[in-house]
Structure formats: C-alpha cells, structure tokens
C-alpha cells in the first residue's frame, strides 16, 4: 500500500473506543504511541507536553469517578435547562431518547476510562505560547498511532474541563502548578468498534477566498 493510502486508511479508521477487552498493551506499543506524540509539531518547538502513564487500578478508578462526575454534572444541568431535550428533539423513539438521557445524566458516558489497560494523562506547560494547540497535535498523533496498532483510544476531557475537577486531578497526581491538564486518553484493546459518526460534507465546510463562498459547489 502506498504511504498516502496507508495514512488515509488510519485517519478514516480512527474511532472513539469506549469498550475494551482485558488485553494489555505491550511496552513496545506504549513506546510507539508516546514516540508519535513526541514527534508532534509545537510552536517554537517548545514541546510543552508531558505524559503520565497510569496503569494502577485505584488511580484509574479515581479518573473514572472524576470523569463520571464531570459528565454527569454537565448533562444533568443540560437536562434541567431543557437544552438536552432540544438537542434530541428530532429523535422520535421515546425509549431510545430516555436511554440516552439516562446514560448522559448519570455520567456513564465518561465512566468507562478505567476499563482501558492504560490511561495517558496529557499535561502542558503553561509558560509557552501555544500549549493547547501543541498538546492537541500530540494527542491526535497518539490517536492515529493507536489506530495504526489496531488498539483503541478515546480523547476525554471530562475530568479536566472544569477547573474544579482539574485542581482535584492535579492534587491527586502531584502535578505542579506550572502545568495545565489538557486531557486524558484511555487506551486498550477494543472489544467493539463503533460505526463512523456522521460528518459534515466538504461542500459545507470549505470556502473559497473568503467566508461564505463555497469552494465545492
């Protein structure tokens, strides 16, 4: 297979994997994933990313709980403010709708992270210009490397999007104040690979020369 075809296949095959077998990653696989992150681009080559590899069950449970709380809190708020009902307005099947509401408000949608063999905590130095962008590039490299190894991962921000949760996470893992927690990435051997999510077409996404003039007609 040509390089461009192999690359596009990996990009197209990537999914957010939330179901894992008990299978473990090898140290070679872990190293390749981390190496792909290390090679990501960064502003002024600052390389502000640092990674914490979490395998300990108790620590993974802590991350699962804090993720569950973060998601559950947010979606319960969305339910109470009726934003969630609006979002699912077009879903006609009441049973499916209720099941989705239940999963979201309970926080279960983010509580799966401890089922993965490892969780990477991605943190970024604050005292550089572009930490969120740099670390996001590293994370995308991680996700693609994971896919190329037939492993599964999910980019999870639930345990650190709210500053209150981020502070708890930083205290638990002894992360110094000069770093910001960017995301966590559970990685394991997938037991279920979901179908691709709907994507907006290029016709709607791309403009020619200025906003509003579609590039693809």
């Amino acid at each position: 297979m040509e390089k461009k075809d192999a690359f596009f296949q990996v990009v197209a095959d990537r999914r957010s994997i939330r179901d894992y077998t008990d299978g473990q990653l090898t140290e070679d696989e872990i190293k390749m994933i981390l190496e792909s992150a290390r090679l990501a681009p960064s502003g002024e080559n600052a390389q502000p990313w640092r990674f914490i590899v979490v395998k300990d069950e108790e620590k993974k449970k802590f991350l699962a709980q804090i993720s569950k709380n973060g998601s559950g809190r947010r979606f319960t708020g969305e339910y109470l403010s009726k934003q969630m009902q609006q979002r699912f307005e077009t879903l006609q099947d009441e049973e499916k709708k209720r099941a989705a509401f239940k999963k979201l408000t309970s926080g279960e949608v983010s509580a799966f992270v401890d089922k993965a063999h490892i969780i990477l905590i991605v943190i970024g130095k604050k005292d550089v210009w572009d930490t969120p962008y740099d670390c996001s590039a590293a994370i995308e490299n991680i996700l693609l490397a994971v896919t190329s190894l037939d492993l599964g991962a999910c980019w999870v921000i639930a345990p650190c999007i709210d500053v209150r949760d981020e502070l708890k996470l930083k205290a638990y893992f002894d992360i110094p104040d000069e770093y910001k927690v960017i995301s966590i990435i559970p990685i394991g051997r997938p037991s279920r690979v979901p179908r691709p999510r709907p994507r907006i077409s290029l016709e709607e996404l791309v403009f020619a020369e200025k906003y509003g003039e579609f590039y693809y007609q």
Partner: protein
Amino acid sequence: MHEITVLLKKLVFDVQKEFYDERGRGARYRLTRVGVPFFEEMMGKDLPNMEHIKEWLIKNKFCGDITVNEDEFSVEILVNNCCLLDIRSEWEKHKVPPLACPIANAFMYSIELDGGMAPELLPIEGQENSCKLTLAKMGTSEVLKKE
C-alpha cells in the same frame, strides 16, 4: 457611579469576553472558581452554609435581596439588584449569555464543601433587576423523574 468603578466593571467584562472569544463556550468551565478566594477571605476558609452566604451578601450590600429555593436535584437562587448587574448587561449587549457569576460560584463551593459534589450552573436567566441562578446539585439520572 465613580469612573474608576465603571472602568473596573468594564475590565471584568472585557477580560471575560476576550477569554470567551479564545476558548468559546468552554470558557464557562474555567471560571467556576472566580470570586471564591475573595469570599473565603471574607467569610472564612470553609465557606459556611448558603443561608450565611446570603445574609453576608445582603449585609455587605453586594445584593439587594436573595431568595433560595432547593429541591432534591437543584437549587434556585434569585439575586436582586446585584452589584455586578452592569457586567451582565454588557453580555446582553453582545448577545452572549453571561459566562460566570461569582455569587453562584460562592454558593456552588459551599454546596461542594457540604456534600462533596460540585454543582453545575445552568444558563443564567436575566430579568430586569435580578438574575435567576439555577444549580444542578450533581450528576444523576434520577433527575429524569423530574418532568
């Protein structure tokens, strides 16, 4: 109003707006601690119960009046004539919902200290001279029972 006070309020809005322009909606989750250190300094390290916060805010003229209603899943706080109303008005002028409220943050922190779970601030509902702050106490699917 003294010009320095006007400037300070404008600055608070400008900083939040710039942050919103950079981070988008997620900015609201980065502002859930804003004001808490001040209120801790004023009212004690472990922010006392909601009734005490309410009395302290009124006594110190941060607000005209506050009413608190609570049920199993949420806390509703109606804040009248708050000293920060001008900042909310700036958001309204820009047609963006207010990002954060230090008074809501104080109540949220108190609830978190009390029960161990951080609440979620729902979109702030602005009325003429008051704000309705609704806090979801925690994430729970039990909330589906509430129609």
